[in-house]
């Protein structure tokens, strides 16, 4: 039996007199960011944002900067995955396809037709969205694990196609031309700060979109579909259409992340932008942080990306894979002791 004083239930509703917010309530279930109701939220957010903006000026080592850039990138990817898998409940293990689409579209447009990389990034988004719909339409007929398995298969097929497609560089991959530093050229060699801020902007954008989704009909429909697709239909929700919308939003952000990656690393091949391991990593970050929450994917990325780095530096390199043992052990601990994700700890 439910009791009204269940701790999580408190967050369902704005306190009396708290009329300033136009949001009817912190969205329920797993989608409510705890700061939103405490009043600490805005302060915490502002602090985080200032810290993020100031970081490269405080920690000047390129190594640290690179690490945080990757945290931002992977947090964004995980959050984009979360829109489809966390909110809407469709677990995809093929998101590398969209990452690769973004990376390859911008890279091929640039190397073959001399397109500006920024335009390439924008061009990658509709391509990835189109591909997501072609994948989604048949696959959304499958439920649960079967959907996940289908997306793994599609990811493998796409990687194999890319390896054998000479036009996009085949297994050798593509090297992007080295250019002089400039914002239009998306290249910054003397100072890598701009990459940092581009990654930050992408992440913030993705978080804003997620935040907005949680508070509109879209978010409610996504969660209803996750809970019970048949019941969702019974209240008039066109389930497949909304799954496709979730897939499109998710693919768009992952594609932008892929384009960013290509420009940042200036080299891509099927092994670096289309592997199954990338799809799994994206999923893993969100799961460890907290699926279906606004902050979970960021928390997951902020912990796991540096952690894998740390264990690799401390214990790796000897050919004994001790680093992977420790990394895997930590992951297992989270799965066993905090299955709701690390964000669940904050809720207590």
């Amino acid at each position, binding site marked *: 039996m439910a009791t009204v004083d269940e701790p999580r239930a408190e967050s369902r509703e704005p306190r009396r007199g708290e009329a300033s917010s136009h949001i*009817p309530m912190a969205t329920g279930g797993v989608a409510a960011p705890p700061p939103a109701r405490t009043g600490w939220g805005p302060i915490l957010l502002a602090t985080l944002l200032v810290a993020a903006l100031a970081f490269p000026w405080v920690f000047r080592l390129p190594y640290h900067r690179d690490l945080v850039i990757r945290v931002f990138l992977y947090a964004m990817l995980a959050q984009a995955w979360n829109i489809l898998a966390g909110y809407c409940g469709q677990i995809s293990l093929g998101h590398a396809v969209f990452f690769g689409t973004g990376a390859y579209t911008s890279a091929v447009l640039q190397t073959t037709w001399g397109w500006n990389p920024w335009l390439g990034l924008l061009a990658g988004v509709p391509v990835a969205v189109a591909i997501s719909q072609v994948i989604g339409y048949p696959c959304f007929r499958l439920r649960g694990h079967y959907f996940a398995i289908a997306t793994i298969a599609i990811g493998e097929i796409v990687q194999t196609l890319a390896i054998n497609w000479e036009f996009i560089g085949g297994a050798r991959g593509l090297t992007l031309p080295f250019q002089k530093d400039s914002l239009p050229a998306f290249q910054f060699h003397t100072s890598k700060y701009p990459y940092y801020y581009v990654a930050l902007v992408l992440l913030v954008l993705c978080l804003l979109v997620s935040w907005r989704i949680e508070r509109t009909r879209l978010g409610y429909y996504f969660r209803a579909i996750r809970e019970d697709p048949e019941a969702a239909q019974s209240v008039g929700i066109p389930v497949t259409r909304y799954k496709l919308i979730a897939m499109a939003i998710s693919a768009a952000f992952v594609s932008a992340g892929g384009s960013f990656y290509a420009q940042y690393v200036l080299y891509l091949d099927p092994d670096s932008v289309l592997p199954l391991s990338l799809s799994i990593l994206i999923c893993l970050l969100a799961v460890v942080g907290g699926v279906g929450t606004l902050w979970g994917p960021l928390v997951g990325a902020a912990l796991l990306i540096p952690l894998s780095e740390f264990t690799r530096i401390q214990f790796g390199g000897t050919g004994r894979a001790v680093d992977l043992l420790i990394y895997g052990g930590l992951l297992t601990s989270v799965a066993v002791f905090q299955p709701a994700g690390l964000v669940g700890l904050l809720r207590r």
Partner: protein
Amino acid sequence: MALLEIQGITKRFGGLVANHDISFAVRPGEIVGLIGPNGAGKSTLFDVITGYHRPEAGEVRFDDHRLVGRRPDQVNRLGIGRTFQKLRPFHAMTVLENVMVAAMQHQADPWAARREALRYLEFVELADKRDSFARDLSTGQRKRLELARAMATRPRLLLLDEVTGGVDQRTIPTLLQLIGRLREQGLTLVVIEHNMRVIMSISDRIVALHLGEVIADGPPSEVVKQRRLIEAYLGDAFVVPSGEPRASGEGLRGAGEGRA
């Protein structure tokens, strides 16, 4: 002019004929009780009407719309709400959110949907539970939640599957009052129910199914006397040779309560 017209519906699952050539009509404002032993095909018929199953033959008309071939969400948007025999609330959402999601069909704005949802929760007397998670409710409360959720889509016809099934005896009067108030609001209802006392008291008309076929259709007082119905529930040992049951409805009542 009928609001809902079921015309020769046949639905098979492999070799099993769940519905065989079922026809009946529901007039506006009517409460029709759909009865029959387990496996008679009642829930299957609901699934056919609401688009979850596609029948092999027949047509369902609702207000001049043909329903066969439409998806469940399209059927709902035409004005048919339903509840499920095996309850399907959105477990990890609050009671209020469950109803809000349904209300959003007409109110995209969450605030407006929330106001409307609260009205329906008050109607089913569940407003005090609005912040509980649906998974934490008792069966009776979940039934009322499903009712509020179905109503929030503003249907003209409500299909209620087993209103009192699994609900403790004290809660039944509350549910019956609710159904009475639904009728006052001008809703048309088709109700599946195993509790005979309940269904006889609320229905204007009874349609009885047995092994996928309609075996009786008429006012409650007439239907209970029909020989085939008594046979279906109790076997022919209970039918006295004259065709009259031993005591009107007595055996039926026992059978119904045994189930409920």
